[in-house]
């Protein structure tokens, strides 16, 4: 009968896979790092460069002899920004592919969905997503690479305070990252002497933010705007800001827009906007003594050679994630999951593309506010401010 034959085929496939695995076990076991990334979908500008970075460096490392004398194998699945897919693939990586650890999760939503799974399976997980909630409260098996949304807000608010601005309007999308950033925006205002006077939302597929910006423009006393989000809508927002003649109101954006795409997409509208970015994006402008300069420049060069594309700040997360993972494996001198986890937790002064990492049992992110650089968009490129 049709149903039986179809499921029978699945069984045969499964049996074949098991046989193949036992065959492979004969050779020296490679170090397996699994990854699920948003290569397609709304967050593809995160996942795509991350995947490219992982593949690029896996190649390079293997050519240089591997790690601990073993080859490195990276298994990447496309979760397309969907938390449910992320869970399915994470499960596949853990149960089926039997990876030693996971470096992935381009978005906060996908990362949080996977947390119960990795905790139960007791496998180290380095997330490449932004929101604070990933490491706060701290979770034993979960680490995080990028600067958090909280830090982006703090860095921006710090700068606003320096310029004597107090009334801030928040505008952002409806996605998880945007919401998290918005929440931090409200929570931290008082700390920097700021007051939130407006809060507008747009949908991820919107093509015109003039209504929202008009409301902000007409809010009495508004002095500065803070934008949360990433992707095409942020470019549109910037362009609308300029078109509505609002450039007299300073505009800050969170680090979700830290890519050349944001500037290009805004058609001149990004001019004058300030953003906290990872050092990677302004590597050439860093002073000669800055330890991050060398690492960032090397990454930019390698990425350009391999893909003929300008580097993306988000690819830097993957670079850091992979190298910290391998560094931990080297220090633990094994791929035993508990040992590697301990080694990650004790990472000290690791110089990455995003910043310098110092992890502790209470801090599973490891970056401080000064590895974030405040830049302003000038002449369609980033200009380091501090």
């Amino acid at each position: 009968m049709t149903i039986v034959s179809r499921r029978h085929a699945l069984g045969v496939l499964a049996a074949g896979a098991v046989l193949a695995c036992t065959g492979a076990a004969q050779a020296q076991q490679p170090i397996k790092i699994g990854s699920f990334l948003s290569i397609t979908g709304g967050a593809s500008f995160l996942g795509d460069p991350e995947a490219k970075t992982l593949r690029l460096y896996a190649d390079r490392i293997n050519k240089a002899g591997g790690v601990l004398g073993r080859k490195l194998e990276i298994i990447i699945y496309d979760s397309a920004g969907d938390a449910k897919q992320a869970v399915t693939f994470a499960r596949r990586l853990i149960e089926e592919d039997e990876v030693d650890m996971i470096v992935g999760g381009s978005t906060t939503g996908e990362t949080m969905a996977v947390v119960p799974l990795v905790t139960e399976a007791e496998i180290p997980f380095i997330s490449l997503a932004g929101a604070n909630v990933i490491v706060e409260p701290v979770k034993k098996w979960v680490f995080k690479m990028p600067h958090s949304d909280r830090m982006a807000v703090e860095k921006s608010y710090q700068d606003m305070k320096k310029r004597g601005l107090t009334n801030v309007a928040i505008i952002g999308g409806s996605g998880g990252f945007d919401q998290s950033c918005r929440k931090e925006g409200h929570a931290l205002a008082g700390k920097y002497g700021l007051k939130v006077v407006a809060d507008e939302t747009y949908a991820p597929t919107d093509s015109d933010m003039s209504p929202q910006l008009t409301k902000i423009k007409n809010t009495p006393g508004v002095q500065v705007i803070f934008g949360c989000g990433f992707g095409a809508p942020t470019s549109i927002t910037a362009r609308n800001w300029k078109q509505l003649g609002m450039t007299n109101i300073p505009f800050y954006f969170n680090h979700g827009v830290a890519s050349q795409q944001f500037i290009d997409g805004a058609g001149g509208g990004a001019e004058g906007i300030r953003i906290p970015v990872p050092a990677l994006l302004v590597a050439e402008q860093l002073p000669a003594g800055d330890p991050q300069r060398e690492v960032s420049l090397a990454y930019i060069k390698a990425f350009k050679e391999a893909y003929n594309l300008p580097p993306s700040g988000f690819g830097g997360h993957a670079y850091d994630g992979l190298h910290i993972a391998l560094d931990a494996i080297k220090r633990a001198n094994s791929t035993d999951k508990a040992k590697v986890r301990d080694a990650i937790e004790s990472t000290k002064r690791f110089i990455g593309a995003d910043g310098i990492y110092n992890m502790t049992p209470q801090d599973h992110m490891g970056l401080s506010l000064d590895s974030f650089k405040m830049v302003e968009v000038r002449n369609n490129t980033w200009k380091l401010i501090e």
Partner: protein
Amino acid sequence: MAEFLQFLFSGLTVGAIYALVGLGFSIIYNASHVINFAQGEFVMLGGMGTVSLMLAGLPMYVAIPLAVCLVVAVGLLLEKFAVEPARNAGVITLIIITIGASILIRGVVEVALGKDFHRLPSFTGETPIIIGGAALQPQGLWVIGALVIVVAALRWFFEHTRLGKAILATSYNPLAAQLVGIDVRTILLVSFGLSAALGALAGILTAPITLTKYDIGIMLGLKGFAAAILGGLGSSYGAVAGGLALGMIEAMSAGYISSAYKDAVAFVIILGVLFFMPSGLFGTRRTERV
């Protein structure tokens, strides 16, 4: 007042985009009673196609007509290889086929042209035109102007050319049209080609405003479909009215009610209209033969 005008301009611009997409749905539906869920992809292909041609070095005034031709070719291929073989299948089957086609087209663009978003430069610059304290972007005028021209051109086409009249005849009664010698299959091809051209045009005109990416077709297609339904299937004017209405509702909801719920408001209103006017605002009331 300035605030209201701003919302109005925003609504008109976005509404004109929806209207153009909805027109594409309407034309194909009229000729064949097929809802082409891949219509949104024609819009995407117009924008992405132009961007890639320009990245390959062609100047904009060459890239645009070339891109339109390419999209028309895609539309013809779609009709020939996906829709025609399933001519007599049910509504649901055709829905699945056109959705499958939209996934396929998206997949090809995703692989061939990448996942980044791109922008086309505005045709006449970025400086907005200030009217009554509200800013209207010049590209928005292009879109609205194009809509007006397209509607007028289509009207002339359908009422004064043989081909146009043949298409109309097919939409009223395919069997009768065949009996008077109209080749229904050709009519179908032409209507797909025409819708593809319209979609491509919409995509090119709006890429400076909305930015273009391999997956913008999904939401645009959905809103265009909603516009066509709101206005009433079977009426091209209806699609235009539906599109403009939808754009206005969205802008006004965002401005006066809640920017977070504006899409929900729009759909609630559409549902409301459908409950009282089951054939949409201007739709032809269907008579069912027993």
